[in-house]
């Protein structure tokens, strides 16, 4: 089977790129693994988040902001072009988001960090505000804040979305634009051929001019065969979800987000436990305590579910984008912020892959940054 481009991985990253390529009239085959594979896309919290991202790599702040700016149009396209009977409501909102601060010291530290990031990126708009507690109470009259909440930073460009609906809409979008999406097609062989690449999956050979590796935690092994060093490791994150209640929490926050249906998502953890996807009582308790620190009234809500997922983490936590030197036409895209960056992946990155060249401004995300010897 032949295609212009083969995308390996149909998680949020691979699906967004494939959707963008299919929309640009490229024939795309997307090869996806099985249901029991590690799937960060199915465990996501659903933030489209900008504030505070990239404190030690300002280009990541710029990248997140670029994607957040592209998101409204991306969401309109993704849902707007679908026929009425196939519309997937993304539950996307961009009204800004909060990061709560406990105590004056934390409040001032947060202000200093965001101000530095603002200056480092050369931003010329009001991308954030530091809000005192009284202002929070005015904006969120339904929330009873805990006594330690001093205030919060408000990121103007932050938003949220239902990540499962996003994934479903991307898959539907790929098919609508003539792409092929094959599940249970874990890749078993991959090599460069006279004209492009050959990929073997489920006993079938697929060939294409270009290749995109976006297989999350499976990317490292695939990339090595294409001459690229792509260090990724699993990092576990856990989430609690409450019963559905009437809307009372009108903005997403880092760690608390009320969904359209009324459930409240509480997160999260950053655990180095390898490929263990268990949900644990210890972390569940810690997450619940954190949420009660923001609002003790949350104690009245019943927890109905808890789950864990594995983030696709790089050594410095920032994304990896690279085209192989050894095998031009083979690209890698991995990150742990597939939801925030979905709009960027489906537009700018898809355009670059279609053109065969990554823009120079993405060079900070080349994995060569991990090979620089550290000063003794």
């Amino acid at each position: 089977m032949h295609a212009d481009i083969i995308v390996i991985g149909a998680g949020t990253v691979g699906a967004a790129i494939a959707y963008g390529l299919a929309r640009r009239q490229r024939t795309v085959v997307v090869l996806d693994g099985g249901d029991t594979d590690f799937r960060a896309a199915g465990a996501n919290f659903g933030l489209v988040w900008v504030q505070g991202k990239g404190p030690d790599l300002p280009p990541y702040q710029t990248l997140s902001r670029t994607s957040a700016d592209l998101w409204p149009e991306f969401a309109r396209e993704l849902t707007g072009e679908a026929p009425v009977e196939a519309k997937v409501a993304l539950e996307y909102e961009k009204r800004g988001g909060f990061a709560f601060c406990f105590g004056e010291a934390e409040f001032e530290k947060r202000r200093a960090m965001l101000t530095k990031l603002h200056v480092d990126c050369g931003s010329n708009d009001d991308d954030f505000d530091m809000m005192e507690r009284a202002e929070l109470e005015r904006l969120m009259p339904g929330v009873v804040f805990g006594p330690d909440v001093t205030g919060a930073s408000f990121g103007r460009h932050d938003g949220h979305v239902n990540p499962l609906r996003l994934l479903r809409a991307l898959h539907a979008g790929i098919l609508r634009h003539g792409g092929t999406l094959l599940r249970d097609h874990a890749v078993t062989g991959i090599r460069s051929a006279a004209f492009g690449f050959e990929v073997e999956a489920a006993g079938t050979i697929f060939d294409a001019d270009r290749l995109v590796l976006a297989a999350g935690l499976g990317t490292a092994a695939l990339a090595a065969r294409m001459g690229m060093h792509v260090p990724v490791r699993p990092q576990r994150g856990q989430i609690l979800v409450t019963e559905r209640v009437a809307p009372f929490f009108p903005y997403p926050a880092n760690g608390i987000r009320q969904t359209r249906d009324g459930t409240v998502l509480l997160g999260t953890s950053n655990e180095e436990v390898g490929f263990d996807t268990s949900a644990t009582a210890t972390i569940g308790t810690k997450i619940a305590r954190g949420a009660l620190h923001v609002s003790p009234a949350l104690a009245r809500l019943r927890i109905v579910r808890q789950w864990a997922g594995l983030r696709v983490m790089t050594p410095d936590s920032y994304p990896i984008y690279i085209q192989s030197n050894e095998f031009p036409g083979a690209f890698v895209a991995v990150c742990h912020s597939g939801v925030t960056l979905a709009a960027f992946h489906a537009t700018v990155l898809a355009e670059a892959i279609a053109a065969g060249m990554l823009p120079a401004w993405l060079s900070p995300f080349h994995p060569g940054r991990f090979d620089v010897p550290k000063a003794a």
Partner: protein
Amino acid sequence: MFRKLPDSTMKAVTLSIDGVRVECAQGETVAAVLLRQQECWARLSTVSQAPRAPYCMMGVCFDCLAIVDGVASVQTCLTAVRDGMIIERQRGRPEAA
């Protein structure tokens, strides 16, 4: 549709469902009592507002949620009746605080 089999050994208990007095017997669950009412639903779906009745009767389906003595989202199939209990059918999403 449902009715209780007569059993004179069970102690009589009175509770109210949406303000209506209902006679029942000690040892019954609230869900069982709801099921034999003229209107046998416990709650309205939080998403579609469709009425939902007790279904699994063993604590897994969450369709039997109702407000019991002021506490919302109680699984009535796991709750035994008590004299003077006040049951309200739950209409949509409860308030958070």
